[in-house]
């Protein structure tokens, strides 16, 4: 600031833009800010509107929260004795998604390790494209495959009376979860610093030793988050389980029993429930429960991922 002003005529005036440009930019940045917070608004709106439709049922004499959560008796349209218990549906969801995760996790983690550590760049590209395409298949197509293709295979191999059962749904859901878990797990492995690998290999470790002594412990949290996000996806999946798990509301005793899940129950009955009836509101209450479950799962996964970032 000690150099003299070269253009005295301009004085100390700052170069300025026309007022409308400044104002326009302000307005635009305000719009951008609005869009930025829209995600929060939408999440809150989802909870608000779903809960708003569900709330009146909390004060109904036919409904109690304890019965809702812990009774396996789901008779929403009974004339004499209406009962809204979703335990059977919760168990159904748990069984199908549990089986799906058990089937999917070993394959996805194995595939993630192979993609990130064992294969060359060309194979890597190909496999990643395959994963992306697998993840893109719409859930209704998976449901259709479950209904027409895998259910027959399941029936043939196990001799089950009906092909659409927990096993069938679990297989379909596993196929749907694998690409998600694999791609997130691969990201987690990629996030491990290259120096870790170099140090292990320099000590004479083989790749396998490096993977299971160095890489897996280092990427533990990321892999856990990947599995959790897979769980979230499995629990929330609707069309595929609606079509592939059969339609029986009962607590299953074996893998070959048909079940109904929370999501499929809403999809199947919402069309028939009279608007703003008690049955309709109970279905919205199930939606609130699903929202809370997936919210908690996603939050946990996010915290776990943040845990590694901090380190």
């Amino acid at each position, binding site marked *: 600031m000690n150099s003299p002003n070269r253009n005295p005529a301009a004085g100390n005036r700052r170069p300025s833009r026309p007022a409308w440009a400044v104002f326009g930019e302000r307005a635009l940045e305000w719009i951008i800010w609005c869009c930025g917070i*829209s995600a929060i608004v939408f999440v809150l709106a989802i909870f608000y509107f779903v809960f708003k439709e569900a709330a009146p049922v909390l004060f109904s004499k036919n409904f109690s929260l304890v019965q809702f959560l812990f009774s396996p008796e789901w008779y929403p349209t009974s004339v004499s004795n209406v009962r809204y218990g979703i335990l059977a549906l919760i168990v159904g969801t748990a069984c199908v998604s549990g089986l799906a995760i058990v089937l999917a996790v070993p394959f996805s983690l*194995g595939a993630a390790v192979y993609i990130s550590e064992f294969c060359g760049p060309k194979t890597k590209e190909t496999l990643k*494209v395959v994963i992306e395409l697998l993840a893109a298949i*719409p859930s*209704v197509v998976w449901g259709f495959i479950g209904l027409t293709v895998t259910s027959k295979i399941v029936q043939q191999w196990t001799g089950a009376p009906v092909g659409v059962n927990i096993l069938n749904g679990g297989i379909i859901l596993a196929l749907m979860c694998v690409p998600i878990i694999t791609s997130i797990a691969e990201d987690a492995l990629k996030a491990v610093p290259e120096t870790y690998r170099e140090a292990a290999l320099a000590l004479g470790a083989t*790749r396998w030793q490096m*993977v299971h002594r160095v890489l897996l412990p280092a990427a533990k949290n990321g892999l856990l988050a990947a599995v959790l996000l897979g769980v979230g996806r499995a629990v929330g999946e609707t069309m595929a389980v609606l079509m592939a798990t059969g339609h029986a509301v009962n607590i299953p005793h074996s893998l070959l029993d048909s079940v109904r899940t929370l999501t499929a129950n809403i999809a199947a009955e*919402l069309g028939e429930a009279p608007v703003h009836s008690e049955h309709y509101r109970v279905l919205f209450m199930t939606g609130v429960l699903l929202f809370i479950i997936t919210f908690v799962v996603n939050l946990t996964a996010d915290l776990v991922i943040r845990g590694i970032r901090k380190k």
Partner: protein
Amino acid sequence: MKPAIQSANDPVSAAASRFSATPFVRRKLRFESIARWLFFLMAAAMIVPLLWLLGHLVMGAAPSLSLNFLLDPPIKGMKEGGIWPALVGTIYLVVMALALSAPVGVLAAVYLNEYARDNWFHRAINMAVINLAGVPSIVHALFGLGAFVYAAQFGYSILSAALTLAIMTMPVVITSTREALAAVPRSFREACWNVGATRWQTIKAVVLPNSISGILTGIILEVSRTAGETAPIMFTGAVFFKAVERGDLFPYQLTDQCMALSLHLFALSTQVPGVSESTQYATAVVLLGVVLLMNATSIVLRIFLRSRMKW
């Protein structure tokens, strides 16, 4: 160790034995190759079902696939005929949803990547985006029903369904746009700031032109996701059947209900008895074809652009 001592006088064999594998090394190499094969099989386990299912579906669909199948409306209680109304309905829904969500999604990503500071508010938005992506599709359907169909009184219409789809698929755009924006080096921005440009001028002149292709990739991905969704439109605006003339391009009003490809597949495979198998398969193949084509476009575009990237 005995042979090594005996051949100590012979330099060639001494070197050979010093560098030849000890049982310990051989064992670890054996484990290495077992692990490599195991992981390879796990990765291959993803490709095989994909190819097999695609092949199976296309083979099953072959008898029905023709240009007439695409252009004809369904006849005889949806048992025969084509899929034209569903195809047009899906296009309507996708275009509407895209027009609603892509601008908001892109601007939200601009806010998150260019304006937001790293504080709790920013983290809350991030969390909201992750959660919005994780909310089950059926809960989105409940939200659409409560918010758009009843509260906003749009009724069962294309508008309600498109709004629901828009909110559901927005995280896809946000995530991929953020990645595209983050790939623009910081030095580009700094250079622009240093010549006196404001934040928005920098974004307009430097950041967006350099990331537009990545943003496009994300939008194509969103199209593919939107086209495949079933649950969110089931209760907000899509119907099983609607009479439409062959080849009619503008059969629907914004406030009409419409048919959609994904819901049509669901209806054919579960609701309508006596549909020939090849018609079902052909519908599935068309839906899958649309979705995978979109994804393939986005993948090819991305690979092409990465090869052209100058930094």
